């Protein structure tokens, strides 16, 4: 095995890791403000990818141009969904909330099936099938752009959470909801905003990485699983943990696929999750 191939796999792993980190970070954001496990997480991203596909088919709008539009659409969708559906259900307990998001999985998957059929669909973009050669590396442009954007968004979201009044209010609700209410923080509104931003980020990410995927209505499950694994590995509700775990899992998966084949590579996220939970039951950065 040459060093060049290892380098190639590591870079590709870092790129996937950045995308994993972003998806998991948005899931953590949603989890942290109300204990909601969003099982429909990946399905929202699939919905955004199909949205990009529909915009392309109808107006020849490129997915990269559709991404910002989808961000605002999904931000609004998330905010309204939280206020009118999630919040009332979540008031009955986090279990009811989890059941609701499971319900959303079936609604979204069947909606996609109904609207677009069950066929595999590829969405062409300006970057599709183009590579950037930086010897000795060869990087597909879509992955490069998607991962750089994911890394930037992750960094921006992280700074917002750690350094702004909004972020401090989100963390305050996570750490002690009653105390947050006593500061006059409008808990429901911050929760709705956090949920909206979490869903909005999926609306943005979906079209940005659509060129690397073949669309099928049930594709959301894979994203949900990876986000769950990354979030739990990093430590439930811990923002730094999600970022670190995303990168670790992305790189390990990519290296294992290269060294031992795709089947082993696909098992790696689960293996890492098990190992981490064995030695650190609350995840890499989890507390308590």
């Amino acid at each position: 095995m040459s060093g060049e191939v290892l380098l190639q796999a590591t870079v590709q792993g870092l790129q996937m890791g950045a995308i994993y980190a972003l998806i998991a970070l948005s899931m953590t954001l949603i989890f942290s403000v109300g204990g909601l496990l969003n099982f429909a997480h990946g399905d929202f991203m699939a919905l955004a990818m199909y949205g990009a596909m529909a915009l392309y088919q109808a107006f020849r709008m490129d997915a990269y141009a559709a991404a910002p539009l989808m961000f605002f659409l999904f931000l609004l969708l998330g905010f309204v969904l939280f206020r009118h559906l999630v919040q009332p259900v979540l008031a009955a307990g986090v279990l009811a909330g989890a059941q609701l998001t499971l319900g959303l999985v079936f609604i979204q998957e069947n909606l996609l099936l109904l609207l677009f059929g069950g066929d595999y669909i590829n969405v062409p973009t300006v970057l599709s099938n183009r590579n950037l050669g930086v010897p000795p590396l060869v990087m597909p442009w879509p992955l490069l752009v998607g991962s750089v954007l994911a890394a930037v968004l992750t960094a921006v979201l992280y700074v917002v959470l750690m350094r702004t009044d909004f972020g401090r209010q989100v963390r305050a609700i996570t750490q002690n909801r009653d105390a947050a209410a006593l500061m006059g923080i409008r808990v429901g509104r911050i929760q709705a905003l956090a949920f909206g931003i979490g869903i909005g980020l999926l609306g943005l990410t979906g079209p940005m990485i659509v060129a690397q995927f073949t669309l099928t209505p049930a594709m959301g499950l894979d994203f949900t699983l990876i986000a769950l694994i990354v979030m739990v590995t990093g430590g439930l509700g811990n923002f730094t943990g999600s970022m670190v775990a995303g990168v670790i899992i992305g790189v390990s998966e990519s290296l294992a696929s290269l060294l031992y084949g795709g089947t082993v590579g696909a098992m790696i996220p689960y293996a890492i999750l098990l190992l981490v939970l064995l030695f650190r039951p609350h995840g890499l950065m989890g507390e308590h």
Partner: protein
Amino acid sequence: MLEVSGLVSGYGRISILRDVELRVEPGELVALVGVNGAGKTTLMKTIAGLVPASAGRITFEGSDLTGRGAERAVDAGIVLVPEGRMVFPRMTVWENLMLGGVHPRPRPHREAMLKRVFDLFPRLAERRDQKAATMSGGEQQMLAIGRGLMAQPRLLILDEPSLGLSPLMVQETYGALRRLNAEGLTILLAEQNVKLSLAVSGRGYVMENGRIVLTGASGELAHDPATRKAYLGRL
């Protein structure tokens, strides 16, 4: 300033408070005493809008706050420093204080308030970047009070500020409360520590089983046999 009348509240369908009457006038330091389980915390939380009232009225400076929620109470200037301190454990002292003043009313004055809080509790300034969870109980109580002050209260309510503190820390905490009151801040204080709270306050209320059973000047309450009785010799 604060007027509570005929107040009934509790959790779910269980009423804890029954027909509670309580007043606080501007500039006063009022103590609410009673044994563990008497309903002091429930009353404080209901005034602060965290627990909904099922009957009665809470008015503050003439405006009706009954059932208007915690955000509205803070807006009006009622700030509760809760029992058990409830600082944000994984945030620094500075972050906790910033959150105390995050409400739109106090927000523009945060820097000035931060200076005042650091003047009152120099130890908080020294620990500015330390995580709240890593501080001692006394320091956390200072932080909880400081965080409450950041909201620029007109009425500061404290629930068991001496609970679990060393005697030295209790002295320091009560010294700060005295000073704040002397500077004109109105304070309502719930305590199991009867001796201490009646010593610093001007007036007091004794609570038992969700009712106010006795009220009067703190000096008299402290010597009233009925207060002693309510405490089974705890005085």
